[in-house]
C-alpha cells in the first residue's frame, strides 16, 4: 500500500502531504525533511526509486514539483509511477495545464482529487473521466450551498443594519 504522498517543490517547500499510515506530527516533519533532502539532491538522469527505512519511495519530477509516494518493499514501482502520472494528468485536466501556483492556492482541491484517486493507500479509481466528473459534481454542491448561504447572510446583514 501507499503509506504517504508528498509534494515538494524544487526549493524544498512542501505543497501537499497525505498520510495513509499513522505518523505523529513530529515524525511527519522529520520524514519530510529527510526525504526531501534525499530526493532533491538526486540528479535528473537517475532512477526514480529510493530505498528508505525499509520502504521504497517512488518520486517523479513534473516541472518544479516532486511527487513522492512511499510504498512497501514488494509493491510495484512502475505501477506507482503510473499512479503519480495519473494524478498529475487529472490535476492537469482539472486546472487546465496545472502549475505550482494552482496547487498553492487550491491546496484543498488537490487534496479532494487525491481522495478520489486513492483510498486507504490503494488506488480506487483508474478512470480520469470519472474522477473529473465526481470532483465537479462536488464543486457544484459547494457552489450551490455557498450561493444560498451568501444570500441568507445578505438578508441578515440587511436586517441587522
Amino acid at each position, binding site marked *: 500500500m501507499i503509506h504517504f504522498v508528498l509534494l515538494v517543490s524544487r526549493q524544498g517547500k512542501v505543497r501537499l502531504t497525505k498520510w495513509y499510515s499513522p505518523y505523529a506530527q513530529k515524525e*511527519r516533519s522529520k520524514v519530510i525533511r529527510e526525504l526531501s533532502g534525499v530526493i532533491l539532491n538526486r540528479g535528473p538522469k537517475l532512477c526514480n526509486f529510493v530505498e528508505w527505512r525499509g520502504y521504497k519511495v517512488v518520486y517523479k519530477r513534473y516541472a518544479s514539483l516532486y511527487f513522492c509516494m512511499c510504498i512497501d518493499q514488494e509493491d510495484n514501482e512502475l505501477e506507482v509511477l503510473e499512479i503519480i502520472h495519473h494524478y498529475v494528468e487529472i490535476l492537469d485536466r482539472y486546472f487546465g495545464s496545472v502549475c505550482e501556483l494552482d496547487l*498553492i492556492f487550491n491546496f484543498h482541491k488537490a487534496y479532494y482529487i487525491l481522495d478520489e484517486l486513492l483510498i486507504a493507500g490503494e488506488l*480506487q479509481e483508474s478512470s480520469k473521466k470519472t474522477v473529473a466528473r465526481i470532483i465537479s459534481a462536488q464543486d457544484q454542491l459547494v457552489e450551490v450551498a455557498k450561493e444560498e448561504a451568501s444570500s441568507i447572510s445578505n438578508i441578515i446583514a440587511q436586517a441587522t443594519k
Partner: protein
Amino acid sequence: MSSSSTSIMDNLFQRSLEDLIKGFRLQLLGESNFISRALEEIRREIKSTDLSTKSTALHKLSYLAALHGVDMSWAAFHAVEVVSSSRFQHKRIGYQAITQSFNDQTSVMLLITNQVRKDLNSANEYEVSLALECLSRIGTHDLARDLTPEVFTLLGSGKSFVKKKAIGVVLRVFEKYHDAVNVCFKRLVENLESSNPQILSAVVGVFCELATKDPQSCLPLAPEFYKVLVDSRNNWVLIKVLKIFAKLASIEPRLGKKVAEPICEHMRRTVAKSLVFECVRTVVSSLSDNEAAVKLAVAKIREFLVEDDPNLKYLGLNALSIVAPKHLWAVLENKEVIVKAMSDEDPNVKLEALHLLMEMVNEDNVSEISRILMNYALKSDPLFCNEIIFFVLSACSRNAYEIIVDFDWYVYLLGEMARIPHCQRGEEIEHQLIDIGMRVRDARPQLVRVSWALLIDPALLGNLFLHPILSAAAWVSGEYVEFSKNPYETVEALLQPRTGLLPPSIRAVYIHSAFKVLVFCLGSYFSSQETTSSSLAQESSSGSSSMNAFTHGSILNLVNVIERDLGPLSETHDVEVQERAKNVLGFIGMIKQEIAEKLNLQYNETESSRVTAFMEDVFSEEFGPVSATAQEKACVPDGLELKENLGDLEEICGEFLKPVESESVSYTDKISFSVSKLRIRDQQETSSSSSPPHEASSLLAEHRKRHGMYYLTSQKEDPDSNSTHSDYPLANELANEISQDPFNPKRKPNQSKPRPVVVKLDDGDESRITPQAKKNIQTAKDDESLSRAIQSALLVKNKGKEKDRYEGNPNSGQQEKEESSRIENHQNSENKKKKKKKKKNGESSKHKSQRRNEVASASEQVLIPDFLL
C-alpha cells in the same frame, strides 16, 4: 443580538484560506511570526458560534498543519463540531481535518461515531464518501465495531462510487475489528466476480493486502483469483492478482504450475512495462522451479537491462538479484552489463550491481573480483566505498570463508582495506582478523606480519573508524607472538606514545598484548638458558631459534622499556588501562630483581621462572571459535532450576561482577579466557596434589562452603567426571572434534598450495534441533492422529479469520457445496474460453475428483484442504 452581529462581522471580515495563502507569500514578518499570528487569529475564530466562521478557521488550520507542521490536535473538538454541520462544504472541511489529525489516542474520537454513522446512511453519496474516507484513515477498534453493519450495507450498494470506497474501507475495518470478517467476507468475495473494473480493482487490492499479511487465509479463494488472472485485461487488476499469486504460490507449490502458463502469456502479450515487471518478479520470486517461465523472465530482464531508462535498468538488476540464489546462470549471462553498471552515475544502480557481483563470486574469481572492487572503492565516494568493502567482507567470510583458498592473500587484502581512505568498516575487519586467527592455523604467520604493518602505520592511529582494526592487530600480535620476527619491535609498536590517541578499551588490549609478548620473550629466554645449561654443549647455537635468541641484555632492555612506558599509565584515570598497566608492572616487579642480579645463572629454580611459566600456561591456552549452538548441546542436569529467580545472587556476586566487566578485552577473548581459567581451577581442585593450594582456589572452596546451594551437587562432579566432561564440551574440544572434515571438497587438484584447514563449527540444522524438538518429531511420526490435531490447530492459528468464517457458519457442509459448484462454474466458463483448455480441464477435473475423495476420507490427508484446483 449583539453576539450574533459580532459573529456576522467575524464572518464578513474573516480571512479566507486564499487570503491566508496570499498573505503568506507577501509577508515580511518571517515565516514563524506569520504562522503564530495566523494561529492566534484561528484560535479566536474557531470559537465562534457561526459554523462558517468556524469551518473556515479549521480549514486554515488544516492548511498550516499539513504544510507547516503546526500542531492541530487541540482543535479536535472543533473539527467534530464542524463535521456535524448539515452543509456539505463544512462537512468536507471537518472530515479533512479529522482525517489529518486524529489518531487512536484522540479523546474526542468517541464523539464522532454517531455522526459518521449518520453520514454513512446519508442519501447524498458524497457525504457517504466523506465518511468512508474518514473511516478508512482513522478507524479504531470501537469505530470499526460500531460501524460494521453500515459498511456491510454499503458493500451491497448499487452505486459503484460508494461500493468501491466501502471495499477500500473494509481493509481497515478487518484490521481493527476481526469479527467484521464474519459479517463482510462473503460480500467481499462476491465482488471478485464483478464485471465493473473499478469494483474489481478495489476488491483485488483488498485481497492483495490480506494475502500479504496472511496468505493462508486467501488460499481457498485461488479459483476466483485464477479466473481474474485469465480473464482480466486491466493492468491495475492484473498486477494486484499477480502479487496475490506470488504469495499463494510460495505456500502452495501446486498452484505455481497452474498459474505459470497464464503469467507467461501476459508476459509475452503485454506492452505495459509495469505488468511485465510484475510477471517477472512473480516468476523469479515464487515460481523459480518452473524452468520455462524463468527462462522467459530472464529474457525479459535482459530487455530491461539494455534499455536506456534508468528505472528499468535498476529494476532489471533488482530482479536478477532475486533470481540469483537459485539460477546463478542468469546473473553470469549478464556479467558485462553488471560490470558496466558499476560505473553508472546512479548510486542505486551501482549498489544493485555490486550486490550481483558479489553473488557471482566463487573461489576461482574471488581475487579478481575483489581486486576490481578495491579499485572501485578507492575511487568512490565514502558511502559507496564502504558498501563495497562491506560486500567484499561478507561475501568472502560467507560460510566460514568457504570461497577463500589463499588465506595469505585474504589477510593481506584485509590489511589493504584498512588503508582505503574512506574505510569505516573497522568492526567487521576486526572481527574477521580475530576470527581467521582462531580458525585458520596456517594463516597466523601472515596475520602477524599484516598486524605488524598495521601497528606501525602512523596514519591509522588518527582514524576513529580504524581503531577496532588496530585492536585486532594488537591482539593478534600478542596472541601469536611466536610467529613474530622481532618481538622487541612489536612491544615498541604496542607502547608507542601515539597510542594515547586510542580509546582506553583498545589501549588496554595493547598493554595486555605487550604483556603477552613479554611473557613469551622471558619464557623462551629461560628455556634457552635451560637447554644450554643442561646440555652443556658449546655448539648449542641452534639456527632455528636464531630470531628468538634472547640475550640477557636484550631481555633486561625489554623489561626496562616496558616499565618505562607503562609507568605513567599506572596513574591514569581510566580503570581499564590502569589495571592492565598495573598487572604488567606487578609482574615486572616480581621478576626484575632476579633478572638484574642473576646474570647467566640457573633460572629454573627461581621465582621469576616459575611465575613466567605460570603466566605462559595462562596465555598458552588456545582460543577456538565457539559455535552459536554450543550452549544448546549441553543438557540441563537434573535438579538445576534455570528459571528460578536468582535475584539474591546479585548480593553475593556483586563484588565479583564488577571486575569481570572491566576485564573485557574483546568479546571472544573474554569468553575463552574465562573458560581456560575455570579449567585451571578445576584441575587445581580435583588434583590438588600437583601444586600447593592456590590462594584463589582456597577462596573458591570457602565460597563454595558458604553458598553451597548455588553449586551443582558435588557427587555428580567427582565420581563420573568423564560424563560431565562430555556433557559440557569445552569450546576448544568442540572445535577439534569438528575440524576433521573441513577440507574443501571442491578443491581443484592442480592447485599449487592446498587450502589450509579452517576450523568450522557444525552449525547445521541437525544440531539446532533441541532434544525436546526431536522427541516431538518422533512422537508425531508415531501418532498420525496427534499430528493431524496439531496441524489443524496450526490451521486455526494461521488461518485465523478465514477459519473463523467457516466455523462461525453452522452449515459448513453447504458452504463446501457452494464452493465446489463455484469451481465447476468456473471450469465451465473456462471450457468455453480457449482451446488449450482441454488439457487443463482434464487436469483440474482430476484434481476435483481427488478433492472429493479427500472430503470423503478426510482423515487421510492432513495438509491444507485442497479446494484449489
